[in-house]
Protein backbone atom coordinates (compact mmCIF):
# COMPACT_ATOMS: atom_id res chain seq x y z
CA UNK A 1 0.00 0.00 0.00
CA UNK A 2 1.43 3.40 -0.99
CA UNK A 3 2.03 5.92 1.78
CA UNK A 4 -0.76 8.42 2.33
CA UNK A 5 -0.31 11.99 1.17
CA UNK A 6 -0.09 14.60 3.93
CA UNK A 7 -2.06 17.79 3.28
CA UNK A 8 -3.60 20.73 5.20
CA UNK A 9 -7.14 20.17 6.47
CA UNK A 10 -7.90 23.82 5.69
CA UNK A 11 -6.05 24.77 2.54
CA UNK A 12 -4.40 28.18 2.79
CA UNK A 13 -5.03 28.53 6.53
CA UNK A 14 -1.73 27.03 7.63
CA UNK A 15 1.46 25.41 6.34
CA UNK A 16 2.50 21.85 7.21
CA UNK A 17 6.29 21.90 6.87
CA UNK A 18 8.92 21.59 9.60
CA UNK A 19 8.16 25.03 11.01
CA UNK A 20 4.42 25.15 10.47
CA UNK A 21 2.66 28.49 10.60
CA UNK A 22 -0.84 29.88 10.63
CA UNK A 23 -1.42 32.08 7.59
CA UNK A 24 -3.25 35.30 8.33
CA UNK A 25 -3.44 38.64 6.62
CA UNK A 26 -2.62 42.18 7.64
CA UNK A 27 -4.15 45.46 6.52
CA UNK A 28 -1.47 47.48 4.74
CA UNK A 29 -2.81 50.76 6.13
CA UNK A 30 -3.86 50.24 9.79
CA UNK A 31 -1.85 47.03 10.43
CA UNK A 32 -4.85 45.09 11.80
CA UNK A 33 -4.28 41.33 11.59
CA UNK A 34 -6.87 38.81 10.45
CA UNK A 35 -7.23 35.08 10.95
CA UNK A 36 -8.43 33.40 8.87
CA UNK A 37 -7.04 35.48 6.01
CA UNK A 38 -9.31 38.38 5.19
CA UNK A 39 -8.75 40.30 1.97
CA UNK A 40 -11.86 42.33 1.42
CA UNK A 41 -12.84 45.50 3.34
CA UNK A 42 -10.85 46.20 6.53
CA UNK A 43 -12.95 45.59 9.66
CA UNK A 44 -11.42 48.50 11.56
CA UNK A 45 -14.10 51.27 11.49
CA UNK A 46 -11.31 53.90 11.29
CA UNK A 47 -9.90 52.35 8.12
CA UNK A 48 -11.28 51.85 4.60
CA UNK A 49 -8.30 50.03 3.15
CA UNK A 50 -8.76 47.21 0.66
CA UNK A 51 -5.07 46.21 0.51
CA UNK A 52 -3.87 43.25 2.55
CA UNK A 53 -0.69 41.21 2.81
CA UNK A 54 -0.61 37.50 3.54
CA UNK A 55 1.41 37.08 6.71
CA UNK A 56 2.46 34.12 8.88
CA UNK A 57 1.33 34.53 12.49
CA UNK A 58 3.29 34.04 15.70
CA UNK A 59 3.82 30.39 16.54
CA UNK A 60 3.37 30.88 20.26
CA UNK A 61 0.93 32.50 22.61
CA UNK A 62 -0.77 32.22 25.98
CA UNK A 63 -3.92 30.34 26.89
CA UNK A 64 -6.95 32.68 27.25
CA UNK A 65 -9.14 29.74 28.24
CA UNK A 66 -9.55 26.03 27.57
CA UNK A 67 -12.03 23.16 27.58
CA UNK A 68 -12.50 19.77 25.93
CA UNK A 69 -14.90 17.75 23.79
CA UNK A 70 -16.02 14.76 25.86
CA UNK A 71 -18.50 13.56 23.23
CA UNK A 72 -18.13 13.13 19.51
CA UNK A 73 -19.02 16.42 17.79
CA UNK A 74 -21.52 16.25 14.90
CA UNK A 75 -20.46 16.35 11.19
CA UNK A 76 -18.58 17.85 9.47
CA UNK A 77 -16.24 16.72 12.28
CA UNK A 78 -14.78 13.37 11.27
CA UNK A 79 -14.13 11.16 14.28
CA UNK A 80 -11.71 8.30 14.58
CA UNK A 81 -13.05 4.92 15.67
CA UNK A 82 -13.33 4.84 18.61
CA UNK A 83 -13.79 8.57 19.24
CA UNK A 84 -11.05 9.99 21.47
CA UNK A 85 -11.93 13.07 23.56
CA UNK A 86 -9.61 16.04 22.96
CA UNK A 87 -8.83 19.34 24.67
CA UNK A 88 -9.46 22.73 23.05
CA UNK A 89 -7.70 26.02 23.82
CA UNK A 90 -8.29 29.67 22.95
CA UNK A 91 -4.83 31.19 22.63
CA UNK A 92 -3.91 34.87 22.67
CA UNK A 93 -1.12 35.95 20.29
CA UNK A 94 0.79 38.85 21.79
CA UNK A 95 1.94 40.72 18.68
CA UNK A 96 -1.22 40.17 16.64
CA UNK A 97 -3.44 40.91 19.66
CA UNK A 98 -6.03 38.30 18.73
CA UNK A 99 -7.26 35.00 20.11
CA UNK A 100 -7.35 31.81 18.03
CA UNK A 101 -9.20 28.60 18.87
CA UNK A 102 -7.76 25.20 18.17
CA UNK A 103 -7.48 21.66 19.43
CA UNK A 104 -4.76 20.90 21.96
CA UNK A 105 -2.04 18.37 21.02
CA UNK A 106 -3.08 14.73 21.23
CA UNK A 107 -2.83 13.14 24.66
CA UNK A 108 -2.85 16.43 26.61
CA UNK A 109 -5.71 16.62 29.08
CA UNK A 110 -7.43 19.74 30.50
CA UNK A 111 -5.83 18.94 33.88
CA UNK A 112 -2.43 19.97 32.52
CA UNK A 113 -3.68 23.33 31.16
CA UNK A 114 -4.17 26.72 32.84
CA UNK A 115 -5.20 30.23 31.84
CA UNK A 116 -2.04 32.20 31.01
CA UNK A 117 0.05 29.12 30.14
CA UNK A 118 2.57 29.49 27.27
CA UNK A 119 1.87 27.27 24.27
CA UNK A 120 3.36 26.56 20.84
CA UNK A 121 1.55 25.91 17.61
CA UNK A 122 2.19 22.48 16.10
CA UNK A 123 0.70 20.40 13.28
CA UNK A 124 -1.05 17.08 13.89
CA UNK A 125 -3.51 14.91 11.99
CA UNK A 126 -7.18 15.98 12.22
CA UNK A 127 -8.51 12.97 10.29
CA UNK A 128 -7.64 10.64 7.44
CA UNK A 129 -9.29 10.02 4.11
CA UNK A 130 -8.67 7.00 1.85
CA UNK A 131 -5.46 8.43 0.43
CA UNK A 132 -4.67 11.50 2.56
CA UNK A 133 -3.83 12.50 6.11
CA UNK A 134 -5.45 15.89 6.79
CA UNK A 135 -3.30 18.00 9.12
CA UNK A 136 -4.44 20.85 11.39
CA UNK A 137 -2.85 23.33 13.83
CA UNK A 138 -2.94 22.41 17.50
CA UNK A 139 -1.68 24.08 20.66
CA UNK A 140 0.91 22.38 22.86
CA UNK A 141 2.13 23.55 26.27
CA UNK A 142 5.78 24.69 26.14
CA UNK A 143 8.26 22.50 27.95
CA UNK A 144 9.92 24.72 30.51
Amino acid at each position, binding site marked *: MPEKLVSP*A*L*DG*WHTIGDDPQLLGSQ*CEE*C*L*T*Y*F*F*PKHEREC*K*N*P*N*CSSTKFLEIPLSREGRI*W*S*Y*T*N*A*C*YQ*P*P*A*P*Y*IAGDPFEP*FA*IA*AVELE*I*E*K*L*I*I*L*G*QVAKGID*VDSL*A*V*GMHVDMIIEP*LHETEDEIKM*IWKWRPKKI
Partner: protein
Amino acid sequence: MKNEVAIIGVGMHPWGKWGKHFTEYGVAAARMALQDAGVPWKDIRFVSGGATIRCGYPGYVAGATFAQALGWQGAEVNTSYAACASGSQALAAARNKILSGACEVALVIGADTTPKGFLAPAGGYRPEDPDWVRFYLGITNPTYFALYARRRMDLYGDTLDDFAAIKVKNAKAGSKNPFSRYKKCFTSEEVAGSAVVADPLRLMDICATSDGAAALIVCSLEYAKKIGKSDAPRVVAISTTTPVFASGIVEMPDIATDSAAAQGIEHQSFRENLPKKAYEEAGIEPKDVDFAEVYDLSTALELDWMEDLGLASRGEAASLLRAGETSIGGKIPINASGGLASFGEAVPAQALAQICELATQLRGQAGERQIENPKVGITANQGLFGHGSTVIVAT
Protein backbone atom coordinates in the same frame (compact mmCIF):
# COMPACT_ATOMS: atom_id res chain seq x y z
CA MET B 1 -41.13 59.73 29.02
CA LYS B 2 -40.90 60.50 25.31
CA ASN B 3 -39.50 57.10 24.31
CA GLU B 4 -41.87 55.01 26.39
CA VAL B 5 -44.59 52.57 25.39
CA ALA B 6 -46.87 50.60 27.72
CA ILE B 7 -47.11 46.81 27.95
CA ILE B 8 -50.81 46.15 28.44
CA GLY B 9 -50.90 42.46 27.62
CA VAL B 10 -48.62 39.43 27.91
CA GLY B 11 -49.15 35.86 26.71
CA MET B 12 -47.13 32.69 26.35
CA HIS B 13 -47.49 29.15 25.10
CA PRO B 14 -45.76 26.66 27.44
CA TRP B 15 -42.20 25.72 26.37
CA GLY B 16 -41.58 22.06 25.51
CA LYS B 17 -40.98 19.67 22.65
CA TRP B 18 -44.49 19.59 21.32
CA GLY B 19 -43.62 19.08 17.66
CA LYS B 20 -46.49 21.22 16.39
CA HIS B 21 -46.44 24.01 13.80
CA PHE B 22 -44.92 27.19 15.26
CA THR B 23 -47.97 29.20 14.18
CA GLU B 24 -50.12 27.22 16.61
CA TYR B 25 -47.96 28.28 19.56
CA GLY B 26 -47.88 31.87 18.34
CA VAL B 27 -51.64 32.13 17.98
CA ALA B 28 -52.16 30.74 21.49
CA ALA B 29 -49.71 33.29 22.96
CA ALA B 30 -51.24 36.15 20.93
CA ARG B 31 -54.80 35.31 21.98
CA MET B 32 -53.72 35.15 25.63
CA ALA B 33 -51.99 38.54 25.34
CA LEU B 34 -55.01 40.11 23.62
CA GLN B 35 -57.31 38.78 26.32
CA ASP B 36 -54.94 39.99 29.03
CA ALA B 37 -54.96 43.47 27.44
CA GLY B 38 -58.69 43.47 26.83
CA VAL B 39 -58.02 44.65 23.28
CA PRO B 40 -59.98 43.17 20.35
CA TRP B 41 -57.74 41.63 17.64
CA LYS B 42 -59.22 43.96 15.04
CA ASP B 43 -57.93 46.99 16.96
CA ILE B 44 -54.30 45.89 16.51
CA ARG B 45 -52.82 48.01 13.72
CA PHE B 46 -49.28 46.58 13.64
CA VAL B 47 -48.06 43.00 13.98
CA SER B 48 -44.31 42.73 14.61
CA GLY B 49 -42.93 39.19 14.49
CA GLY B 50 -39.59 37.62 15.34
CA ALA B 51 -38.55 35.38 12.44
CA THR B 52 -37.72 31.71 12.74
CA ILE B 53 -35.30 30.26 10.20
CA ARG B 54 -36.13 26.64 11.07
CA CYS B 55 -39.73 26.50 9.92
CA GLY B 56 -39.53 27.29 6.20
CA TYR B 57 -40.94 30.29 4.37
CA PRO B 58 -43.76 31.08 6.86
CA GLY B 59 -41.02 31.57 9.46
CA TYR B 60 -39.17 34.12 7.29
CA VAL B 61 -42.32 36.26 7.10
CA ALA B 62 -43.42 35.54 10.67
CA GLY B 63 -45.26 38.86 11.15
CA ALA B 64 -47.51 38.15 8.18
CA THR B 65 -47.86 34.47 9.10
CA PHE B 66 -49.21 35.28 12.57
CA ALA B 67 -51.46 38.05 11.20
CA GLN B 68 -52.94 35.62 8.70
CA ALA B 69 -53.37 32.90 11.31
CA LEU B 70 -55.25 35.29 13.58
CA GLY B 71 -57.39 36.36 10.60
CA TRP B 72 -56.29 39.03 8.11
CA GLN B 73 -57.74 42.33 9.27
CA GLY B 74 -55.62 44.85 7.35
CA ALA B 75 -52.96 45.62 9.98
CA GLU B 76 -49.42 46.46 8.87
CA VAL B 77 -46.77 43.81 9.48
CA ASN B 78 -43.04 43.57 10.16
CA THR B 79 -40.62 40.68 10.59
CA SER B 80 -37.29 41.00 12.40
CA TYR B 81 -34.44 38.53 12.45
CA ALA B 82 -31.51 38.87 14.86
CA ALA B 83 -31.18 35.34 16.25
CA CYS B 84 -31.90 35.44 20.00
CA ALA B 85 -32.43 39.22 19.91
CA SER B 86 -35.19 38.94 17.26
CA GLY B 87 -37.94 39.60 19.80
CA SER B 88 -36.31 42.81 21.02
CA GLN B 89 -35.85 44.06 17.47
CA ALA B 90 -39.50 43.27 16.75
CA LEU B 91 -40.42 45.22 19.89
CA ALA B 92 -38.20 48.13 18.78
CA ALA B 93 -40.05 48.23 15.44
CA ALA B 94 -43.41 48.35 17.24
CA ARG B 95 -42.17 51.04 19.60
CA ASN B 96 -41.02 53.20 16.66
CA LYS B 97 -44.37 52.76 14.96
CA ILE B 98 -46.22 53.81 18.12
CA LEU B 99 -43.93 56.72 18.99
CA SER B 100 -44.19 58.07 15.44
CA GLY B 101 -47.95 58.19 15.89
CA ALA B 102 -48.57 55.76 13.02
CA CYS B 103 -50.31 53.28 15.30
CA GLU B 104 -51.69 53.19 18.82
CA VAL B 105 -51.56 49.52 19.71
CA ALA B 106 -49.41 46.67 18.36
CA LEU B 107 -48.85 42.93 18.77
CA VAL B 108 -45.24 41.75 19.16
CA ILE B 109 -44.81 38.03 18.81
CA GLY B 110 -42.29 35.22 18.43
CA ALA B 111 -42.67 31.43 18.22
CA ASP B 112 -40.48 28.50 17.25
CA THR B 113 -40.51 24.78 16.61
CA THR B 114 -37.05 23.27 16.99
CA PRO B 115 -35.87 20.27 15.01
CA LYS B 116 -34.92 17.09 16.84
CA GLY B 117 -31.23 16.44 17.59
CA PHE B 118 -28.10 18.53 16.91
CA LEU B 119 -28.26 21.72 14.90
CA ALA B 120 -25.55 20.85 12.38
CA PRO B 121 -24.42 23.08 9.50
CA ALA B 122 -25.00 22.15 5.84
CA GLY B 123 -22.62 19.50 4.44
CA GLY B 124 -19.87 19.54 1.82
CA TYR B 125 -16.44 21.19 2.10
CA ARG B 126 -17.09 24.85 2.88
CA PRO B 127 -14.09 26.50 4.56
CA GLU B 128 -15.47 29.97 3.75
CA ASP B 129 -18.27 29.40 6.31
CA PRO B 130 -17.04 29.92 9.91
CA ASP B 131 -19.85 27.75 11.25
CA TRP B 132 -18.75 24.87 9.03
CA VAL B 133 -15.09 25.35 9.97
CA ARG B 134 -15.59 25.25 13.71
CA PHE B 135 -17.68 22.06 13.55
CA TYR B 136 -15.01 20.53 11.25
CA LEU B 137 -12.49 21.20 14.03
CA GLY B 138 -14.82 19.69 16.63
CA ILE B 139 -15.85 23.01 18.21
CA THR B 140 -19.53 22.92 19.26
CA ASN B 141 -21.75 25.47 21.04
CA PRO B 142 -20.86 24.18 24.53
CA THR B 143 -17.16 24.74 23.68
CA TYR B 144 -17.68 28.51 23.78
CA PHE B 145 -19.75 28.45 27.00
CA ALA B 146 -17.11 26.23 28.60
CA LEU B 147 -14.28 28.61 27.64
CA TYR B 148 -16.08 31.48 29.39
CA ALA B 149 -16.84 29.30 32.44
CA ARG B 150 -13.27 28.03 32.79
CA ARG B 151 -11.93 31.57 32.57
CA ARG B 152 -14.17 32.57 35.49
CA MET B 153 -12.83 29.66 37.52
CA ASP B 154 -9.19 30.49 36.81
CA LEU B 155 -9.52 34.29 37.17
CA TYR B 156 -12.14 34.72 39.91
CA GLY B 157 -12.16 31.40 41.75
CA ASP B 158 -15.70 30.45 40.76
CA THR B 159 -16.37 26.76 41.42
CA LEU B 160 -18.37 23.88 39.99
CA ASP B 161 -20.56 24.16 43.09
CA ASP B 162 -21.35 27.77 42.15
CA PHE B 163 -22.45 26.70 38.69
CA ALA B 164 -24.57 23.89 40.15
CA ALA B 165 -26.15 26.37 42.58
CA ILE B 166 -27.36 28.45 39.62
CA LYS B 167 -29.07 25.43 38.09
CA VAL B 168 -30.65 24.58 41.44
CA LYS B 169 -31.83 28.19 41.94
CA ASN B 170 -33.27 28.52 38.42
CA ALA B 171 -34.89 25.07 38.49
CA LYS B 172 -36.61 25.97 41.76
CA ALA B 173 -37.97 29.22 40.29
CA GLY B 174 -38.94 27.48 37.04
CA SER B 175 -40.86 24.80 38.92
CA LYS B 176 -43.29 27.56 39.90
CA ASN B 177 -43.73 28.90 36.37
CA PRO B 178 -46.71 27.49 34.44
CA PHE B 179 -44.95 28.15 31.10
CA SER B 180 -41.57 26.50 31.84
CA ARG B 181 -40.59 23.21 30.22
CA TYR B 182 -38.80 21.63 33.20
CA LYS B 183 -40.62 21.54 36.54
CA LYS B 184 -38.22 19.38 38.49
CA CYS B 185 -36.31 20.91 41.43
CA PHE B 186 -32.81 19.56 40.78
CA THR B 187 -30.27 19.18 43.57
CA SER B 188 -26.62 20.17 43.33
CA GLU B 189 -25.74 16.46 43.60
CA GLU B 190 -27.81 15.76 40.50
CA VAL B 191 -26.05 18.54 38.58
CA ALA B 192 -22.64 17.33 39.76
CA GLY B 193 -23.59 13.78 38.76
CA SER B 194 -24.56 14.70 35.20
CA ALA B 195 -21.97 13.90 32.52
CA VAL B 196 -19.25 16.43 31.69
CA VAL B 197 -19.92 17.68 28.16
CA ALA B 198 -17.26 20.37 27.78
CA ASP B 199 -15.07 20.71 30.85
CA PRO B 200 -15.98 22.31 33.29
CA LEU B 201 -19.61 22.25 32.13
CA ARG B 202 -21.87 19.29 32.73
CA LEU B 203 -24.99 18.37 30.82
CA MET B 204 -27.17 20.15 33.36
CA ASP B 205 -25.11 23.35 33.14
CA ILE B 206 -26.14 23.77 29.50
CA CYS B 207 -29.57 24.80 28.22
CA ALA B 208 -31.67 22.77 25.79
CA THR B 209 -33.61 23.97 22.73
CA SER B 210 -37.39 24.11 22.96
CA ASP B 211 -40.63 24.93 21.20
CA GLY B 212 -42.50 27.89 22.63
CA ALA B 213 -44.11 31.26 22.01
CA ALA B 214 -44.41 34.65 23.69
CA ALA B 215 -46.44 37.72 22.80
CA LEU B 216 -46.85 41.29 24.01
CA ILE B 217 -49.51 43.91 23.40
CA VAL B 218 -47.81 47.31 23.47
CA CYS B 219 -49.38 50.74 23.04
CA SER B 220 -48.93 54.48 23.48
CA LEU B 221 -49.22 55.86 27.01
CA GLU B 222 -52.30 57.80 25.87
CA TYR B 223 -53.98 54.63 24.65
CA ALA B 224 -53.17 52.82 27.92
CA LYS B 225 -54.75 55.69 29.84
CA LYS B 226 -57.80 55.68 27.56
CA ILE B 227 -58.54 52.03 28.34
CA GLY B 228 -57.91 52.43 32.07
CA LYS B 229 -54.42 50.92 32.16
CA SER B 230 -52.30 53.98 32.93
CA ASP B 231 -50.40 51.99 35.58
CA ALA B 232 -49.25 49.32 33.08
CA PRO B 233 -45.48 48.55 33.02
CA ARG B 234 -43.58 50.65 30.49
CA VAL B 235 -40.74 49.79 28.14
CA VAL B 236 -38.26 52.54 29.05
CA ALA B 237 -35.23 51.41 27.02
CA ILE B 238 -34.22 49.04 24.24
CA SER B 239 -30.61 48.49 23.21
CA THR B 240 -29.71 46.41 20.17
CA THR B 241 -26.25 47.90 19.59
CA THR B 242 -23.59 46.03 17.61
CA PRO B 243 -20.23 45.21 19.17
CA VAL B 244 -17.45 47.79 18.84
CA PHE B 245 -14.25 46.80 17.02
CA ALA B 246 -12.09 45.08 18.20
CA SER B 247 -14.18 42.36 19.83
CA GLY B 248 -11.89 40.60 22.31
CA ILE B 249 -14.02 37.58 23.23
CA VAL B 250 -14.23 34.49 21.01
CA GLU B 251 -17.87 34.41 19.97
CA MET B 252 -19.79 31.60 18.32
CA PRO B 253 -19.30 30.65 15.48
CA ASP B 254 -15.91 32.35 14.98
CA ILE B 255 -12.55 30.62 15.26
CA ALA B 256 -10.71 33.84 16.21
CA THR B 257 -11.39 37.28 17.68
CA ASP B 258 -10.73 40.64 16.07
CA SER B 259 -7.17 41.89 16.30
CA ALA B 260 -6.53 44.97 18.44
CA ALA B 261 -3.14 45.61 16.82
CA ALA B 262 -4.08 48.86 15.06
CA GLN B 263 -3.29 52.25 16.56
CA GLY B 264 -6.05 53.52 18.85
CA ILE B 265 -7.88 50.19 18.96
CA GLU B 266 -8.55 48.29 22.19
CA HIS B 267 -10.23 44.96 22.81
CA GLN B 268 -13.88 45.43 23.72
CA SER B 269 -16.50 43.24 25.37
CA PHE B 270 -19.77 43.13 23.46
CA ARG B 271 -21.81 42.06 26.47
CA GLU B 272 -20.40 44.85 28.60
CA ASN B 273 -21.08 47.52 25.96
CA LEU B 274 -24.63 46.43 25.13
CA PRO B 275 -26.45 47.72 28.27
CA LYS B 276 -24.73 51.14 28.25
CA LYS B 277 -27.16 52.53 25.69
CA ALA B 278 -30.13 51.06 27.59
CA TYR B 279 -29.13 52.66 30.90
CA GLU B 280 -28.56 55.97 29.13
CA GLU B 281 -31.91 55.84 27.36
CA ALA B 282 -33.74 54.95 30.59
CA GLY B 283 -31.80 57.57 32.54
CA ILE B 284 -31.01 55.07 35.29
CA GLU B 285 -27.99 53.23 36.67
CA PRO B 286 -27.46 49.56 37.45
CA LYS B 287 -28.11 50.25 41.16
CA ASP B 288 -31.69 51.24 40.24
CA VAL B 289 -32.42 47.77 38.84
CA ASP B 290 -34.45 45.44 41.10
CA PHE B 291 -34.28 42.19 39.09
CA ALA B 292 -33.03 40.76 35.79
CA GLU B 293 -33.72 38.09 33.21
CA VAL B 294 -30.40 37.15 31.60
CA TYR B 295 -29.41 34.62 28.96
CA ASP B 296 -28.19 31.56 30.87
CA LEU B 297 -27.19 29.49 27.84
CA SER B 298 -24.95 27.97 30.48
CA THR B 299 -25.16 28.35 34.25
CA ALA B 300 -21.82 30.19 34.37
CA LEU B 301 -22.95 32.69 31.73
CA GLU B 302 -25.53 34.03 34.20
CA LEU B 303 -22.61 35.29 36.31
CA ASP B 304 -20.95 36.95 33.29
CA TRP B 305 -24.20 38.74 32.43
CA MET B 306 -24.69 40.01 35.99
CA GLU B 307 -21.29 41.67 35.80
CA ASP B 308 -21.79 42.91 32.23
CA LEU B 309 -25.06 44.56 33.28
CA GLY B 310 -23.28 46.22 36.21
CA LEU B 311 -25.37 44.31 38.78
CA ALA B 312 -22.14 42.97 40.34
CA SER B 313 -18.53 44.15 40.16
CA ARG B 314 -16.26 42.16 37.84
CA GLY B 315 -15.52 38.80 39.45
CA GLU B 316 -18.03 39.33 42.28
CA ALA B 317 -21.20 37.76 40.86
CA ALA B 318 -20.60 34.39 42.51
CA SER B 319 -20.39 35.95 45.98
CA LEU B 320 -23.89 37.44 45.49
CA LEU B 321 -25.08 34.01 44.39
CA ARG B 322 -23.53 32.32 47.44
CA ALA B 323 -25.19 34.86 49.74
CA GLY B 324 -28.56 34.02 48.20
CA GLU B 325 -28.97 37.55 46.85
CA THR B 326 -29.78 36.36 43.32
CA SER B 327 -32.65 34.12 44.47
CA ILE B 328 -36.25 35.24 44.80
CA GLY B 329 -36.25 37.11 48.11
CA GLY B 330 -32.65 38.30 47.64
CA LYS B 331 -31.42 41.82 46.80
CA ILE B 332 -31.20 41.25 43.06
CA PRO B 333 -33.14 38.18 41.89
CA ILE B 334 -31.80 36.80 38.59
CA ASN B 335 -33.98 34.66 36.31
CA ALA B 336 -37.00 34.48 38.58
CA SER B 337 -38.80 32.95 35.57
CA GLY B 338 -36.52 29.93 35.81
CA GLY B 339 -34.37 31.20 32.93
CA LEU B 340 -33.17 29.13 30.00
CA ALA B 341 -32.30 26.43 32.53
CA SER B 342 -36.04 25.81 32.99
CA PHE B 343 -37.26 26.83 29.55
CA GLY B 344 -34.69 25.78 26.98
CA GLU B 345 -34.15 28.20 24.15
CA ALA B 346 -36.91 29.01 21.64
CA VAL B 347 -34.93 31.57 19.66
CA PRO B 348 -37.47 34.11 18.28
CA ALA B 349 -39.64 33.89 21.42
CA GLN B 350 -36.95 34.06 24.08
CA ALA B 351 -36.32 37.82 24.30
CA LEU B 352 -40.10 38.34 24.47
CA ALA B 353 -40.49 35.67 27.15
CA GLN B 354 -37.95 37.61 29.23
CA ILE B 355 -40.06 40.77 28.83
CA CYS B 356 -43.25 38.84 29.70
CA GLU B 357 -41.58 37.87 32.99
CA LEU B 358 -40.56 41.48 33.68
CA ALA B 359 -44.11 42.72 33.06
CA THR B 360 -45.67 39.91 35.11
CA GLN B 361 -43.36 40.61 38.07
CA LEU B 362 -43.89 44.37 37.84
CA ARG B 363 -47.67 43.78 37.91
CA GLY B 364 -47.26 41.63 41.01
CA GLN B 365 -48.84 38.64 39.23
CA ALA B 366 -45.98 36.13 39.38
CA GLY B 367 -47.63 34.01 42.06
CA GLU B 368 -45.26 31.78 44.01
CA ARG B 369 -42.20 33.25 42.27
CA GLN B 370 -43.20 36.87 42.92
CA ILE B 371 -40.38 39.28 43.79
CA GLU B 372 -41.20 41.74 46.53
CA ASN B 373 -42.38 45.07 45.14
CA PRO B 374 -40.10 45.44 42.08
CA LYS B 375 -39.98 48.76 40.17
CA VAL B 376 -37.34 48.21 37.47
CA GLY B 377 -36.28 45.07 35.59
CA ILE B 378 -33.75 44.47 32.82
CA THR B 379 -33.28 41.70 30.23
CA ALA B 380 -30.17 40.62 28.34
CA ASN B 381 -29.62 38.12 25.57
CA GLN B 382 -27.23 37.39 22.74
CA GLY B 383 -27.32 35.83 19.33
CA LEU B 384 -24.68 35.04 16.74
CA PHE B 385 -22.48 37.84 15.38
CA GLY B 386 -23.27 40.14 18.29
CA HIS B 387 -26.99 40.51 17.72
CA GLY B 388 -27.69 40.92 21.40
CA SER B 389 -30.30 43.03 23.09
CA THR B 390 -31.22 44.42 26.43
CA VAL B 391 -34.58 45.90 27.42
CA ILE B 392 -35.54 47.83 30.55
CA VAL B 393 -39.13 47.75 31.81
CA ALA B 394 -40.37 49.87 34.74
CA THR B 395 -43.57 50.58 36.60
